[in-house]
């Protein structure tokens, strides 16, 4: 009996010893081993924090979303490193949801340094830096606790760009690119990877639409045969591809305009991209004081009489045809539907020459545009000020039309006058005889 008791006790002890680690692991997992579980214990509930601006910010984290997110592996404290037993819940006031996002997005750069650097040079960062509260921060595109893998952004869902650029995305979705993407990337029976937003605009270094050189080279990155193809039929193809945006012809329904960009001949850069040209910007506003659009004389004054820090400037205007609305730049049609008729632009009544702007660039590639009278393209005064832009037929100088008419009628008047003079003189001679 004693032996049985001892044996039984030993077996129980052995069993307890064998089970001991398992109990310990379970405890670790449920209590101390999974800090995320600890966090979610509270943050899965509908917690809210009152912000200084009066708004109540939700502190709820959907556990399922977080588990599916790419950040589940680093856990809550991977980003919320300042949270600790003694510091949480924090009594530190938060001024606004936006300010909190700005601070929290700094955390992203600690792991995603290259992406953060690219973002810093983007139009989004520029707008955010200028206080635009609608400009997206990291979490606006990637969400806060449901950060998804990159593949999620590849199909034609429009995510995340569509959230802000819905009209543009809808235009894209109906374009040759969008339809090809939705159709399994089939273009003209070939399997070609049709671009999605980030392929042209970059994912983090999102470029301003006005950074035309970049966008055009982006088109040519895929359409590498386009230059040669245009040279086959288009006179002055290289010039056209420089001074006409791709979309101006390949988005046939688009409304077009001529943008005259102020260009610094000495620095060989657009005015405003290298250094600020505050005086010329002020001068532009000052010259068009009536705010009715720059007329030919005002434009001439701007180009010829402007100074920078008291020194004469060597500024010129570089013209470029582009689409008026950014959304139209995304309505790219199949090649067969692109504008091919020269008459579309090279005639006096062309709508493209009715809308004219004068622009100054900013370092981030954005353009500040000022309205100009369409007369600036047809005035004799513009021979000097708009020397760098001319489209035969479309922007012809009206004074020269007058001179041509004079030359024709004057030329015809000479024989008529001479013959008449001859008749008079002969008649006079006959009368005298």
């Amino acid at each position, binding site marked *: 009996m004693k032996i049985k008791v001892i044996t039984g006790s030993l077996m129980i002890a052995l069993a307890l010893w064998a089970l001991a680690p398992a109990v310990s692991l379970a405890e670790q997992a449920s209590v101390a081993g999974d800090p995320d579980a600890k966090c979610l214990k509270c943050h899965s509930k509908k917690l809210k924090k009152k912000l200084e601006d009066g708004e109540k910010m939700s502190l709820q984290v959907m556990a399922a979303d977080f588990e599916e997110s790419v950040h589940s592996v680093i856990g809550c404290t991977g980003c919320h490193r300042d949270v600790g037993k003694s510091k949480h819940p924090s009594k530190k006031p938060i001024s606004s949801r936006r300010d909190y996002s700005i601070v929290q997005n700094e955390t992203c750069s600690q792991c995603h340094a290259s992406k953060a650097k690219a973002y810093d040079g983007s139009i989004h960062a520029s707008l955010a830096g200028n206080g635009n509260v609608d400009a997206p921060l990291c979490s606006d595109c990637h969400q806060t606790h449901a950060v998804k893998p990159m593949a999620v952004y590849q199909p034609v869902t429009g995510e995340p760009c569509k959230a802000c650029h819905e009209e543009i995305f809808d235009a894209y979705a109906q374009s040759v690119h969008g339809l090809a993407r939705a159709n399994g990337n089939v273009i003209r029976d070939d399997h070609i990877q049709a671009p999605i937003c980030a392929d042209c605009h970059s994912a983090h270094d999102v470029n301003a639409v006005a950074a035309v050189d970049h966008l055009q080279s982006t088109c040519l990155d895929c359409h590498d045969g386009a230059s040669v193809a245009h040279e086959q039929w288009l006179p002055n193809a290289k010039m056209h591809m420089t001074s006409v945006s791709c979309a101006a012809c390949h988005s046939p329904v688009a409304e077009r305009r001529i943008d005259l960009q102020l260009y610094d001949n000495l620095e060989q850069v657009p005015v405003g991209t290298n250094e600020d040209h505050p005086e010329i910007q002020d001068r532009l506003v000052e010259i068009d004081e009536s705010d009715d659009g720059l007329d030919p004389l005002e434009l001439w004054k701007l180009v010829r009489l402007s100074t920078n820090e008291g020194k004469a400037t060597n500024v010129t205007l570089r013209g470029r045809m582009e689409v008026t609305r950014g959304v139209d730049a995304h309505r790219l049609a199949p090649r067969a539907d692109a504008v091919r008729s020269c008459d579309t632009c090279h005639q*006096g009544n062309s709508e493209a020459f009715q809308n004219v702007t004068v622009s100054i660039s900013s370092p981030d590639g954005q353009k500040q545009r000022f309205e100009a009278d369409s007369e600036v393209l047809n005035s004799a005064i513009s021979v000097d000020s708009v020397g760098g832009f*001319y489209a035969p037929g479309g922007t012809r*100088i009206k004074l020269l039309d007058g001179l041509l008419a004079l030359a024709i009628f004057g030329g015809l008047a000479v024989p008529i006058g001479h013959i008449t003079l001859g008749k008079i003189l002969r008649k006079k001679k006959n009368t005298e005889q």
Partner: protein
Amino acid sequence: MTTMQTTHFRQEKTYLHPLAVRIWHWLNALGFLLLIITGFQLRYVDLFSLMSFESAVKMHNWVGFGVIANWFLWLVYYVTSDKITNYHPDLDAKDFFKRYFRQMEYYSAGIFKGEKKPHRVQPHDKFNPMQKLTYQFVMFITAPAMFLTGLMMWDVVRFQGLIEMVGGIRVVNTIHVLLFILFTFFIIIHAYMGVLGKKPSSHYKEMITGYEEPH
């Protein structure tokens, strides 16, 4: 002097226009006419539709190169022949302009009174002072300027540096169009002056046969 005998009048006819010059002249005339027509089409698509803008550009470019090549044929012919004297400048300006105004006077009145022509046409001095000054200006200044500005517009990227030196593509085009206006005026007057021979057809026949028509 090259001469020939006519059977009816047995009068010596002066050989004024060598074959090379006549070929150059009529090719040039055809070229200029086509350039003016296509030039009008390029400039006034909204007013004329003789051909598409694209066709007008192609024709204007090809004919333009043809006229440039033809100009060089003219230049080579005159530089290598003794007929270059026709284009020699008159060093006595006072005498030249005296004769120039006498020629003007003739065209204004003398021609209608049956007066004798003030300038005696000869193979090595066939232009009267008005013609000489006009042709010197047309052949040595306006035509090369027209060709040069046309070339710049034909390929604005290739001639970018030159275009910027001139002041931009609009300046280049304005010069080209001003010359186009001048040439249009010139062609009309030139065609009319052609009928002011002994008979309206005399000068035209001369430019075909090469021989001066009897006066």
